[in-house]
Structures are given as C-alpha cells and as structure tokens.
C-alpha cells in the first residue's frame, strides 16, 4: 500500500499536522482517492514506530506535528525506484467467467463479452467525465484518471481480442477439453 509513502513525500516538504496531511493527500490525487483522517493517524503511528517520522508536541494526536527522519527520506527514495508488483493476481475473475462461459453449451459468449465491455466503458466514461470537468491544468487529477482509464482500456482490448479469437471457433460453441485452465495471460481483474 502506498499511503505511508505518500505521507512521507508530503512530509519531505516540512513538518505538518495530520489534518493537513489528509487534505494535501486528497487534493494532490485529484480527490479521486479519499483518505480518512483515522487512516492518516494510524499510518503516522506506524511510521513513528519504525523510526521513519518523528512527532513533536504532546497530548492529543491532532495537536502533534510530524517530521520525516533521515531514515524516512532514505526509505522514500528506495520506494520510488522499486518497481511495483506487475505479476497479475493468480485468478483473474473476468478471464475465469469467460472460460466458464465457454463450457456451457448454447451460451452466447459474445453477448457476455459485450456486457462486460459496456460496463467497463461506462466506468471509463465516468473517469473521463471527471477529467473533462476539471481544469485542463489539473495535472494530478489527469494522472490519476489516466492511470485508471488505461488500466480499464486494457480490459476492453482483452475483450476485443477474445471476441476475435472466438469468431474462429467452430459453431456451436464446443466445450473445451480438460476443464477450466489457469489463465496464463497477464490481464487485469474486473472488480
């Protein structure tokens, strides 16, 4: 999870209170990723325990100011350069649904693919709508929206490719031998 690192990054500008960290996190991710203040304090507590931030002031947590330590700065620099996990989850729900559909005699797999395609594009329309309504120079929001849009577009491309592959199958839809196989292609999960 990248919230601790986002907080470390915000603290590298100087010491801040928890509430301010929450506000800055939300505004810099284009407010697409809400973060509640409780999450901010639990994360800060953990960072402090690990020696990555230090707090000053006492009493209530809302009155404390947090500062990044040198260990925190090093940890942040390492994290920025570490590649994220790109290996897909072992079972992609959408791939499994389509493989299962292929087993069922008489089912219109093309129609199932289309139902998913429509749904994914509707979600994309919502992200694009947010981007369209925002100021053109709101770069953080555009970056967040694009990340989701390209991820979703990859799903549409997989659906299109699946459609094209299925066209080459002889009709009526045969049951594939050997049951449901593990997906081998890196695709994204439809939540």
């Amino acid at each position, binding site marked *: 999870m990248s919230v601790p690192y986002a907080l470390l990054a915000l603290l590298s500008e100087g010491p801040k209170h928890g509430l301010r960290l929450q506000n800055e996190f939300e505004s810099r991710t284009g*407010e*697409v*990723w*809400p973060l509640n203040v409780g999450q901010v304090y639990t994360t800060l507590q953990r960072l402090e325990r690990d020696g990555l931030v230090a707090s000053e002031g006492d009493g209530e947590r809302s009155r404390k100011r947090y500062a990044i330590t040198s260990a925190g700065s090093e940890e942040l620099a390492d994290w920025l350069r570490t590649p994220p996990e790109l290996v897909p989850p072992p079972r992609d729900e959408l791939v499994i649904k389509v493989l299962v559909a292929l087993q069922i005699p008489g089912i219109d797999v*093309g129609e199932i693919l*289309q*139902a998913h*395609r*429509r749904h*994914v*594009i*509707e*979600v*994309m*329309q*919502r*992200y*694009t*709508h*947010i981007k*369209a*309504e925002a100021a*053109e120079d709101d770069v953080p929001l555009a970056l967040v929206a694009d990340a*989701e*849009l*390209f991820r*979703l*577009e990859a799903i*549409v*491309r997989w659906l*299109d490719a699946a*459609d*094209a592959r299925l066209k080459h199958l002889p009709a009526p839809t045969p049951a594939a031998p050997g049951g449901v196989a593990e997906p081998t292609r890196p695709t994204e999960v439809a939540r």
Partner: protein
Amino acid sequence: MTSALELRHVSKVYGSGPSEVHALSEVDLSVERGELVAVMGPSGSGKSTLLTIAGSLEEPSSGHVLVEGTDLADISRSDRAKLRRRSIGFVFQDFNLLPGLTAIENVTLPLELDGTRAKAAQETGLNALEELDVAERAGRFPDELSGGERQRVAIARAIVGRRGLLLADEPTGALDSLNGEAVMRLLRAATRRGVAGVVVTHEAYLASWADRVVFLRDGYVVDQTHAAPGPESLLAAGDR
C-alpha cells in the same frame, strides 16, 4: 423535438447474389443537438458505412436518414449536396486539408462554395480557428502545421458556419494519446455549443469522451451505454 440526425431501419447491402455483403442491418439511431455519440465496433462492423450514410455521401439500400428533420430521400440530389455543405461537417483521420490552401482558406472554402462573400467568410472562418485555438496559424499551409494543429483546422472547417451535425471518422487515429484527447475535448466542446456529434473510433480511451457509446457488430447495433451515474459513486469505487 427534431433530432439533428435520425436513422430509421437503415440497411446497406453491397453487391448481390452470393457475393452480397450486409454492411448495415436495420440500424436505428438518433442523435440530438448537444450530444456526442461514439460508435465502436471491430473492423468490418459497419462503422464507416454508418457515417457515410449519415453524411449523405452514400445512400442506404433501405430505411430513412433524416438530418434536422429532413428526409434525405425526399429531396433532390442538388438539395442534398446543399444540405451536406450547410449542415454537416466532416472530420477524417488523415485531416483531408487541401495542401495548396492556407489554414484559413481551407476553413472558408465550404462557406464560399455556398455563396458567402469572401469578407464575411473570412470573419466566420477566423472565429472558428479562434475557437480551436489556432487563429495565429491562419496563414500557414497544412505542411507547415503539426498533426495536432492540422486536426484543429480540420475541426474548424467542420464546424464553421451553422453546421448542426459533426461526423468524425477515427479523427484521432494519426495522433498520440494527448493530442487525441485534445481533439476529443474540442469535439465535446463543439457539441456543448449545440452541435450534434458522431465519432467513429475503436479506442475506448477516446470513446469514453462521448455522452453515449453505441456498439456495432456485423452491421447491427447490438448495445449502447446507459447514462453514466454521477462522480460520487466513482469516488466511492476509488476508496480502497
């Protein structure tokens, strides 16, 4: 209310006998002013045929095409050409700007062909270039413009005057994603000013700029998106 574009049971068959190809079958589609509709589908699904028929560049084998309430079958060939010049703007993937004409001359050409005086055409053309943020390039020839600028000029030519219908065939195909997005932003802005827009694309990233996405498959309209819920539900979806 009269739709800017209405297709009623439109079919298009090419060839005859065993080589017959059904490019479009019983297509119903209405597009209102202020609305941007994207048409998606695999190659050969009839997307481009739909656009050329909607733009009266081709006639349907059966069914009716109404542009702002006028049935194209009820008017003469020359009236159709006039309606096409006055009411419909086209944007193509490869821009189709005339190389020997400057940006402003390309934009004013349809107006002058339609009898508008040169001076008035010039003024209207400059306004259109201004809307698309390329007015300062008005005197340049197409080969002196970047890809993104050429497409802006092509869109200016498509919306100049009082066109009510904007038809675009893969208008972002030759552009990178950000220039493509800029084009979709402009098409969307044009529809917000009251034009009806239809854009054919196979890219979901660009189709998602449309208010409605219509899916074509083997010449049939098989599906379309429904009105998208507001952004609140998206924020909830992003909470993870």
